[in-house]
């Protein structure tokens, strides 16, 4: 059964990517411009760090690595599981109905229904930043790959949690999107900037610490404890997302919907 599920997931991602590539022109433009977008934005950090060589211990190379990992993880997330952004809309429009009549996980299927072409641009720019940081060797490449994947899983899991609120609250598209983008925003800033209480939030409710900071730490020094922590965190967030989505699905199946009359 696991083999069937893996085979399905692989086929789903392949179909998803194929669909995005179907409009070749638009795809290429989105990819190229997203790379330009990310590189241009980074000029701010580059310029700032020409003046201050370290920011509470973080050098330019560290920030490049941070950007690289988060951009690559985000790109991977919205390319392979781009449906995460649309979960709220799927719920409201009843698009989960067809998925419920099929014998595969509704969540996985829903995540694999959409792909954002610009995600590939994010992924490429992420790899550019990582290479540019000069902190990666052939030996550390597998570790970088692992942390990017773990980070992507956490991003998707949090997206699922935020957008699944639609099961209970109806059209909360804007709020959920903003929460999710907030997560990405926080992930892009070096963690030493943040004080005690906020740091707690960044490792729990809005796990930017697991998306950006911990992966960078691991690339610098791949201690078993840190890697284990990241893997456990990724698993925990995915389990939470799965649980919340399932609960929501049960509610969906009971027919409770938000109907506005007044």
């Amino acid at each position, binding site marked *: 059964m696991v083999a069937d599920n893996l085979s399905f997931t692989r086929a789903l991602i392949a179909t998803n990517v194929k669909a995005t590539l179907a409009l070749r022109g638009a795809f290429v433009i*989105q990819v190229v411009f997203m790379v*330009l*977008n990310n590189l*241009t934005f980074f000029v*701010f950090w580059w310029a700032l760090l020409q*003046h201050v060589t370290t920011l509470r211990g973080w050098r330019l190379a560290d920030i490049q690595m941070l950007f690289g990992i988060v951009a690559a993880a985000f790109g991977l997330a919205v390319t392979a599981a781009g449906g995460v952004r649309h979960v709220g809309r799927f719920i409201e429009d009843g698009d989960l109905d067809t998925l419920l009549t099929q014998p595969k996980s509704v969540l996985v299927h829903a995540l694999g229904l959409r792909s954002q072409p610009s995600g590939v641009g994010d992924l490429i720019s992420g790899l550019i930043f990582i290479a540019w940081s000069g902190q990666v060797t052939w030996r550390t490449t597998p570790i970088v790959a692992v942390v990017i994947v773990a980070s992507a899983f956490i991003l998707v899991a949090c997206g699922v949690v935020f957008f699944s609120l639609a099961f209970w609250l109806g059209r909360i598209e*804007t709020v959920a999107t*903003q929460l999710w983008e*907030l997560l990405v925003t926080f992930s892009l800033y070096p963690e030493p900037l943040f004080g005690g209480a906020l740091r707690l939030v960044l490792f729990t409710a809005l796990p930017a610490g697991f998306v950006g900071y911990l992966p960078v730490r691991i690339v610098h020094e791949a201690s078993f404890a840190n890697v284990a922590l990241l893997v456990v965190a990724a698993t925990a967030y995915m389990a939470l997302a799965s649980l919340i989505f399932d609960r929501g699905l049960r509610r969906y199946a009971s027919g409770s919907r938000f109907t506005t009359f007044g």
Partner: protein
Amino acid sequence: MTASHVGKYAAFSRIAATQARSERHELYGRMAFFAVILGVFSSLWRAVAEAGMPIATDPKSLVWYLAATEWILLSAPPIHIQIQEAVRRGDVVYRLGHPVSYVVAEFAGALGLLAVRAPFLGLTAFLCAFAFTRWTPPLAALLIVVPFGFAASALITALYLGIGLLAFWLQDVAPVYWVWQKLLFVLGGLMLPLECYPAFIQRAAAFTPFPSLLTAPASFVLGTHFMTPGALAGRLVIWSIAIALGVTWIFGRAVSTVTINGG
């Protein structure tokens, strides 16, 4: 422009202002984002100060600087989206024969939105900056930012309009918008005053309206004037004319594309 012309466009402005009040969701989101970004940057500038400030000013001023640039940027309603939608749907074709010029009507509408967003976001900017720095710049400095900020925001709105019109040729203007916006951030000195950037970037920026839109008005808060008020006013006038001509030209080309290709 006769009084009736102005009246017509003013009516569009009023309608849009009502719409804006019902777009509260988006506005509240912007306000929340404002609070977050100012919080993050107040930490950032304090951290930078530990290592050595890049310009002769203190971290608190730089937080207020960011509050000013973000206020200007976020107040401009992102109308490129609705224009792209209208072009895609073909709605624009119907408006082309309308006596009220489509472009002017859209701009007037957007100004109505701006009139609602700017005070709210301005208040948010003030409160958040104060909360994070426990300090305010001299009142005169803040007051001079306001009119320039409104003007700059209006110009940014006009630029959004121009970008939206590109939808006549491009399937999707979003990629162009992304890169344009990041250039605005860098060349306009959104987060870091332009004078902190290397010389070649500053030279490149001089060819764009971006410095006049963000870094110049906001720098009054720093006490180090990027340009004198007079010079800035002059620049804004010149760029207004240039942008107005540019947008009109784009629209003209768009109309001829439609009439040649039949929409």
